[in-house]
């Protein structure tokens, strides 16, 4: 190692470029104008992780007198609650509502979000996990993401706390095999534009398009604005049967999901957050897809946890009755009318015992 003429030949400009890159990306991630502009151009499904981060970014610092409720779950949460309505109704009482939704809404995904939620200091977390999320195949956990690249979130919200649970349930071998996902997660934590690369490039393209055509795309708040076609259920059932889907045969809740659900509730409770679990409204048509009736095992499990842990459980029976033809967009996503029903229900539920609602 003879030639040490670092001063002259060392790639200083490259080092400077890396520093400038980190500086610019860090600055961008802290700029309200960036989040506001890009949020407006983002799409509810493709850009859901970006929106999730934007929502957390825009959550104001909590004043001590205020009460904060975070409704946490999958796409059914985003589609099922009208926070504008709830915030207006509870404005005088100083209660603010936020919906935070994550793809699949299963306990694994929700667990990865736990620290981000706690950081926002909610008084109450209303958990509404997707029922189907409790039936995921453990060994399909990672490959699941591979099939749906735009909804995968592993590498976007990676939390190392999950590793011991994964090793316990999946084994060291599988976790090691999927090491790139974890490493991606670590890199993405540090490199913000990499985390949202697809959304950012898509939005930039839209911006260029808007600048060229002079037409700004309409802002879309909810995932689904139109209902499904009249023969949607029939077609889906046919497809399900012909494809012989794995989930069709699911007969037990995934142990990893069960354990992470309990851990998540305990974690919130340790941080003095009251947890209320609300069942996801479910269209009866879903029973034609799953012979084992998805809700039976799920409800039993939640009821058991409600007794064991100090949590409130609002079961399907307590929810208002949703009409399968007029309140749903598909099997489990509500339309505007259903959303109104659900939001009103929550409002009345809180009003009925407002004093105790926030007590924990």
């Amino acid at each position, binding site marked *: *190692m003879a*030639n040490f*003429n670092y001063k002259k030949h060392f*790639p200083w*400009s*490259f080092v400077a470029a890396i520093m*400038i*890159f980190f500086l610019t990306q860090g600055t961008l991630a802290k700029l309200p104008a960036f989040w506001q502009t890009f949020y407006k151009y983002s799409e509810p499904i493709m850009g859901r992780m970006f929106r999730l981060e934007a929502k957390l970014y825009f959550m104001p610092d909590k004043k001590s007198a205020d009460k904060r409720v975070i409704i946490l779950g999958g796409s059914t949460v985003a589609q099922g609650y009208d926070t504008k309505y709830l915030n207006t109704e509870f404005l005088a009482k100083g209660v603010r509502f936020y919906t935070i939704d994550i793809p699949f809404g299963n306990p694994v995904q929700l667990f990865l979000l736990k620290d981000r939620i706690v950081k926002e200091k909610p008084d109450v977390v209303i958990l509404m996990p997707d029922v189907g999320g409790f039936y995921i195949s453990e060994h399909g956990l990672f490959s699941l993401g591979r099939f749906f690249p735009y909804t995968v979130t592993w590498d976007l919200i990676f939390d190392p706390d999950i590793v011991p649970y994964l090793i316990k349930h999946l084994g060291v071998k599988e976790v090691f095999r999927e090491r790139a996902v974890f*490493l991606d997660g670590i890199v993405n934590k540090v490199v913000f*534009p990499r985390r949202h690369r697809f959304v950012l490039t898509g939005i930039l393209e839209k911006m260029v398009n808007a600048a060229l055509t002079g037409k700004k795309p309409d802002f879309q708040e909810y995932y689904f604005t139109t209902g499904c076609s009249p023969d949607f259920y029939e077609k889906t059932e046919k497809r399900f049967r012909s494809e012989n889907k794995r989930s069709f045969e699911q007969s037990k809740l995934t142990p990893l999901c069960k354990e992470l659900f309990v851990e998540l509730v305990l974690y919130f409770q340790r941080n003095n957050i009251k947890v209320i679990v609300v069942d996801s409204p479910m269209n009866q048509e879903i029973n034609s897809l799953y012979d084992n009736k998805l809700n039976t095992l799920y409800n039993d499990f939640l009821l058991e946890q409600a007794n064991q842990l100090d949590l409130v459980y609002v079961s399907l029976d307590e929810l208002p009755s949703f009409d399968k033809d007029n309140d749903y967009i598909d099997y489990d996503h509500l339309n505007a009318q259903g959303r109104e029903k659900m939001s009103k229900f929550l409002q009345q539920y809180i009003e009925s015992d407002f004093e105790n609602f926030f007590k924990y």
Partner: protein
Amino acid sequence: MDFLSYDFLFFFLLLFIIYWRLDRKKQNLLLLLGSYFFYACWDWRFLFLMLFVTGIGYICAIGIYRAEQKHKNSILWSSIAIHAVVLFFFKYYNFFIDNFNRLISDIMRVGDISSFWLDIILPLGISYYIFKSLSYNIDIYRKVIKQPATSFLDYALYISFFPQILSGPIERAANFLPQVAAPREFNVKFFSESCYLFFWGLFKKVFVADGLAQIVNNIFKEQGVVSGFDVLIGAYAGTFRLYADFSGYTDMAIGIAGCLGFRTMLNFNLPFFAKNPFDIWRRWHISLSSWCRDYIFYYLNRARLRLGLIGIGGTSLAIIITMITMGVWHEASWAFLIWGLYHGILLTVANALGKLSGNFLPDRLKKKNKWLGALGMFITFHSFVFGELLYMSTSTYKSVGQAVNVIRNLFFNFTLTSGSATFLVIFIFHTWILIVIEFFQFIKNDHFVVLKWNFWIKTVFYVLLIWLIVLYWGFSGPGAFIYGEF
């Protein structure tokens, strides 16, 4: 293990740190073990095949060197035969069975040999290391290399050197072995240049090649009618994609080798600035084209002279056979055979025109003329693009009619579709940086022209590239390297 994976990053960092603390012999041993580990990560079983080829090449070289003149020939031909059998079996056997079966069963209807079809895995990098081993033996025979490698380990490192094993360049032993035998010095300038090459290669792969892939995949797909304009954009995009993908890989490979103190051969030298079809093969995949020139064309040329085939016809035949060999070297397929034939014909025509112009053109036109040069570049570039279009259409579409139709649309259905403007914008967006930089490299005749820029211009340029790499890095890493399949 891919260059653009975390595994490789950890592997290389560890190797790099240990490597520069060792003496030459231990460095070589570490590199050899590292190379075998790198290869075994793909499939350890095929290490034995590589060891077999290494052993054959090594022993035959010593045999050729030591044998009396009359035996040298037979040892060399034995070596060529063994290498050819190995390559044929793994790469061409099923292609041969398929086509022969089609001939005797579908056309002649005299039998069926489909049961001879074997489920063969194509060993990674086999075309590269077989060619390396062959060239070594022929160079010993031709005395280009004065004496064979004294150490088997050195020779094994030449064959298995991990930066080059997956997609070349097909390094020559005459360049590599002396470097293995000599002590290496860590040179900061060379190290910086190597890092820059890796970075530039990474940009070409992630931003240019993978960015253009979306156009190519959208235009050249089994279903749908493609308009002439889209075919043109698709052909440009496909050519730039192939170039960015392969030269990007090569730059990374040369950069990695450079970080370990090795100066490996250049594989691409601004091919789109070539002035004639011969020039392009002095600039595109140089290690393969020079290999084919030195070991196939020269041999065929001598053979045809011995056979008395003097004149342009003999040369043309030698050129066409060489180019077809070069085509099927890539892959056992009709698409590459047609691609090779096309380039062979193109070179033959260029050769004939060169001879004619030499005889008939006035002296003032023979002198260097920048406009003629530019016209030459334009024609050469487009004839090359057409070759790529031939390959893309013949390899994409199952029916010949569909492939012909696509090419016909280019000339007779030159219309715009709703997606045409988008394709064009994406094409320009993903290529303009590459084109600008290569233009600077060309006019300054310097591959490292960027390194000579002012500190802040260079820094801004790097920041731009870093942002684009980060934003355009694929979901599960960059796409696979195209030449990794050959």
